[in-house]
């Protein structure tokens, strides 16, 4: 579904953020990407739907080359859902309008069709009563659930999560993770940048560990948590699991 091969990316002439990254995510697979700050994990996931350009290598998404100038990027992006650290709901639109905008403008669905789909997804994330509120009137956890619903409204073939719980209060993290766990159980293809190791051990098939722009470890979940091969990953795990 997502094939990343030998991706190199530089900011400016000398700072390399991604070094020869190669990995893949199969259909229905849940892959967690973790690593210390500045390791390039967010950058990598943003390369997948071309929010960030990269200079070398290639990424193929459902058979379509992302870094081909001929690729219709808006069309491709519409098929991949993305959830951001800071939710990024559109503040001037009501919750239901947030869910309808791209359905109507990008997919060309009728307003009624989009509304029906939006209502269904709001119900799914348990926020039906907030349909007519504005994002700033909701809690962080609620906003992030709306953001997930907004992405799902596009009927994506895969979902990308960029630290979806990092900006949330501890109490709100689980309500967002619950939605993600459900998604994973339904067989959604997911690539998730997160520090939530509980989530990783529960639903991930594979875990990718990145450091300084490199993919240091790319292993099955059990192997990663049981016996990480690299010293760097061992250290990282011991630090985040020590409390």
């Amino acid at each position, binding site marked *: 579904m997502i094939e990343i091969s030998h991706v190199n990316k530089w900011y400016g002439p000398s700072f390399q953020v991604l070094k020869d990254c190669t990995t893949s995510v199969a259909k229905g697979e849940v892959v967690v990407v973790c690593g210390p700050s500045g390791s390039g994990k967010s950058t990598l996931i943003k390369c997948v*739907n071309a929010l960030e350009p990269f200079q070398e290598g290639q990424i193929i998404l459902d058979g379509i080359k992302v870094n081909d100038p001929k690729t219709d990027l808006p069309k491709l992006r519409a098929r991949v859902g993305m959830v951001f650290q800071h939710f*990024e709901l559109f*503040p001037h639109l009501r919750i239901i309008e947030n869910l309808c905008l791209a359905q109507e403008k990008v997919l060309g669905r009728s307003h009624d069709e989009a509304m029906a789909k939006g209502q269904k997804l709001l119900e799914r994330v348990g926020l039906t009563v907030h349909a007519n509120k*504005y994002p700033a009137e909701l809690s962080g956890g609620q906003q992030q659930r709306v953001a997930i619903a907004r992405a799902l409204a*596009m009927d994506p073939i895969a979902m990308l999560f960029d630290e979806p719980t990092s900006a949330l209060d501890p109490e709100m993290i689980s309500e967002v993770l619950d939605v993600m766990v459900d998604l994973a159980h339904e067989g959604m293809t997911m690539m998730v940048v997160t520090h939530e190791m509980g989530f990783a051990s529960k639903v991930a098939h594979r875990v990718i560990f990145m450091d300084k722009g490199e993919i240091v470890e790319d292993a099955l979940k059990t192997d990663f948590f049981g016996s990480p091969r690299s010293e760097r990953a061992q250290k990282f795990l011991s630090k985040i699991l020590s409390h």
Partner: protein
Amino acid sequence: MNYNWNWHIFFEPNPTGAGTYLDMLVAGLLLTIKTALLAWVIALIFGTIIGILRSLPSRTASWIGFGYVEFFRNMPLLVQLFLWFFVLPELLPRGAGLWLKQIPNAPFWTAAIGVGLFMSARVAVQLAAGIASLPRGQKNAATALGLTTAQGYRYVLLPIAFRIILPPLTSEFLNTIKNTSVAITIGLIELTGQARAMQEFSFQVFEAFTAATVMYLAINIVVVTGMRFLERSLAIPGYITGK
């Protein structure tokens, strides 16, 4: 000082034979409003286009925006009006220059367009600042949903940015109204022009300019009240200024 106050002067017939001095001033007031409104529409249209150009990542676009803004904001308004009114017709090929000179109401069109372009540079700078103040993630979220750049601006960035810059835009609207008085130098007999004419015919300089001042104040109060109302009706619940 030996000055004969005469507040009844407004109701005395003016030397043109058509109505009173008050009628003269009201005619000037209407022309000021007409000129200012057209200038403001021009300022908003061109300011929006240039403001968007300045916010795009493309280097060409931002150079065009930069050149435009610096051209129109670094020259005194008076010089600009002289350029459009006296110099431009001479620079054009003979036929075009002649046509330009013979346009009916040339001072009106020149003033509206000249003031409009002058003010558009200021609108552009503010809009660009408004767009720049939005979190980067907003653009990313719009892009990730498959919206094209144009759609992202139309449905997401501009509606929020314009709300943010409404208060300074109010000031620019007021400046536009006041700046139309410069057009007296190219023969537009707007409110200031009529006040001066009244002074020359009647020698009641203080009454004439007191009335003009009150009229300027009145239009501006209407604008300020209107913009306040607009701000309130567009406020986003829970977001920035909204309550």
